[in-house]
């Protein structure tokens, strides 16, 4: 059984399933570090998945991916407008967007493809294979026919670390989430930083959705995100708002999901195996694992006060 659990096939599957969680979690870092909770990740993934499928269906996979990213950003802009400008509770806005995204996607799917819940099959980006490594048998599943978005996602982890730590933008973004009042007195536009953080998170979530529909599944299917937006948020929390931490957390969740997809011969009914990723999410989010250390002002809207 252990052989089965840690087989190369299983690892390859785990990594494939890690990517959407990882991308969305990386996005969430930008949003949360700027001080805004983005529980609307799920919805941003949904619209990303749908519009990527549409784009790919009409203009090919590259355009599809760009459409997915754009769709995520558009939905994120609404979140930014509502929370940053109109100072609505961030959770309420995010949940509303999730509902909105589900509705829009179903409506658009029906009117464009004539089917409410699925799109036709769409093509993905060309798959990659690393030839020399593919000859080693236990590495083969990992290095053959994989999506180019997989290495890109891991590169984005490094990029995120670098942006947050070593750029002016990253420093200001974090300041907006830690102490917006201080940032404001230093002439930093807190509202602009938060818009930026949220919209970047929308781009990442849209890309995550695009990966799901055109790379992973080859079509859009209603409900295909299966709560991955929420799981991504949990991964980010588990990873303590750091890109590296979120990456390991996403790998853990991806692995859990890979297990749940396989009917491993065990004594436990497979329905129980299926709940593993979600159970893990609950445990992580309820702070079982360790004390989390969020940005000081995440979740609170900033208002310039007088008096």
């Amino acid at each position, binding site marked *: 059984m252990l052989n089965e659990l840690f087989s190369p096939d299983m690892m390859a599957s785990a990594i494939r399933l890690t990517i959407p969680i990882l991308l969305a979690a990386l996005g969430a870092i930008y949003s949360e570090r700027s001080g805004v909770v983005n529980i609307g990740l799920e919805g941003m993934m949904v619209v990303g998945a749908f519009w990527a499928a549409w784009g790919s269906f009409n203009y090919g996979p590259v355009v599809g991916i760009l459409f997915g990213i754009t769709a995520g950003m558009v939905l994120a802009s609404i979140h930014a407008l509502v929370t940053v400008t109109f100072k609505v509770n961030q959770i309420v806005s995010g949940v509303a967007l999730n509902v909105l995204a589900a509705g829009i996607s179903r409506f658009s799917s029906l009117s464009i493809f004539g089917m409410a819940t699925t799109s036709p099959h769409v093509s993905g980006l060309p798959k990659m294979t690393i030839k020399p490594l593919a000859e080693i048998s236990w590495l083969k599943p990992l290095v053959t026919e994989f999506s180019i978005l997989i290495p890109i996602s891991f590169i984005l982890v490094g990029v995120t670390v670098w942006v947050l730590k*070593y*750029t*002016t*933008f990253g*420093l*200001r973004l*974090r*300041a907006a989430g*830690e*102490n917006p*009042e*201080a*940032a*404001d*007195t*230093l*002439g*930093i536009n807190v509202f602009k930083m938060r818009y930026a953080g949220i919209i970047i998170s929308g781009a990442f979530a849209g890309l995550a959705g695009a990966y799901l529909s055109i790379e992973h599944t080859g079509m859009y299917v209603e409900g295909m995100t299966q709560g991955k937006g929420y799981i991504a948020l949990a991964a980010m929390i588990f990873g303590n708002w750091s890109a590296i931490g979120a990456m390991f957390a996403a790998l853990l969740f991806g692995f859990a999901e890979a297990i749940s997809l396989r009917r491993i011969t065990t004594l436990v009914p497979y329905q129980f195996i299926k709940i593993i990723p979600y159970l893990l999410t609950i445990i992580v989010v309820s702070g079982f694992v360790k*004390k989390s250390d969020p940005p*000081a002002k995440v979740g609170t809207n900033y208002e310039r006060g*007088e*008096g």
Partner: protein
Amino acid sequence: MVSRDLVIETKGLRKSFPGVLANDQIDIDIRRGEVHAIVGENGAGKSTLMKMLCGLYQPDAGEIFLNGEKIELSDPGKAIKLGIGMVHQHFMLIPRFSVTENIILGAENSNRGVLNFKKAHAEVEELCKRYEFDLNPKELVADLSVGEQQRVEILKVLYRGAEVIIMDEPTAVLVPQEVDELFKNLKLLVEAGKTVIFISHKLDEVLEISDRITVLRRGQKIGTVNKEDTNKKHLAEMMVGRPVLFTVEKGEADVEGTVLEINDLHYSENGQAILNGVNFEVKAGEIYGIAGVEGNGQTELVETIVGLRKPASGSVKLLGKDITGKEVVDIRKEGIGFVPEDRHKRGLVLPMTVAENSILGKHNSKDLKKSLLLDYKKIEALTKQYITDYDIRVSSPQVEIGNLSGGNQQKVILAREFSGEPNLIIAAQPTRGLDVGAIEFVRKELVKARDAGKAVLLISADLEEVMAMSDRIGVIYNGRITSEFLPEEVDHQQLGHYMLGSEKEGAAK
């Protein structure tokens, strides 16, 4: 038009907020290279004036001149660019950032958006050296002491090339040693040609550091005086508009038996020990003052005594009866009057009326009820009694308490907590944020309670207050009472020393 040695000049500045005229016709002039103090009571308009000078508020009328030229300060960024920097009373720092990150934030030297930390660290180090600031640029601000954090704030404005540094009540959060250090730094700054505007209501400090002093009262400028031409009494009179008593008048303590007895009290939170074995007792007829830098367990100690927190071990005895870890209701029944340090959080319910607030905690008393319901007639009568007895300035008991001034709010709490003959009165920061008149009143009431034979436990961050009020002083450090003194045994400096962790030889329990 304007003489050349003036850095800042204002003419007819006015600013009003809904219902208040915070500044009216303010003309001030600040000379280059001086320390200019702005003094006044709470609500006199000091902060409003300074916020206009650093661009946070826009004046309704009037003009500001910098080096003789009229300027418009539309936002703080503009003020910084023109060389006016403000060090806020509540630090605007990010604990999770390093010293350097905090300093460069918003004024980063970057190459196409990429930060050069090596250069930034070097620049900060250079500034530290020039003005003799003892700081490590790479350290996290979360690990710094309050005094060090203040230095980071000053460096922030220096890094931006400030020529005029406005400091809003900079000594409020410091112990005496840190104040000395700050004054040394300020003198170096002035020697280097900078100008310092120093806002305070602590007259001793003002007289020590400033060259000239401007007094504000109720939004108006009363006058500007040279340090040599004035003294504390004179300044206080200018501030308040009448002669002020600085000393607390009190007779010899008539001490009787022990009322409160704390034995080896321990308390911890999130695995961190906060109280590490507190021992002391308070007797009837005395004021026992606890002095200490904030965050050494004062809040937790008080809240453990009144039952808001449960101790890990140790005991609290009131008149010999063990009340350790009991519910708040039961402890209050034993006769404790509690003036909490945060009156908005613990003392009052702001959206409720004065009458409702006056009976908080007594709402179950039979005297105030008619069978199951509250008897509002009786409540109103009681409140009116409080209003006369404690000179609470309010038009009716039905006014929302949030609309009252801090002093009047505190009087409602005193009235509520002092009535009903408590055996022990715990007053935590009882005069914080009050103006001189209200402070006088609260102190008199505490002395009155002590003279009536009650035990009074006073916790205050204001060293002057502890020294002036207490019959005995305990110094709290790191969750322990490390030394005890009679007020005549020590001076400020020594007490400050003990507050930073030294222990009195042989006397520590």
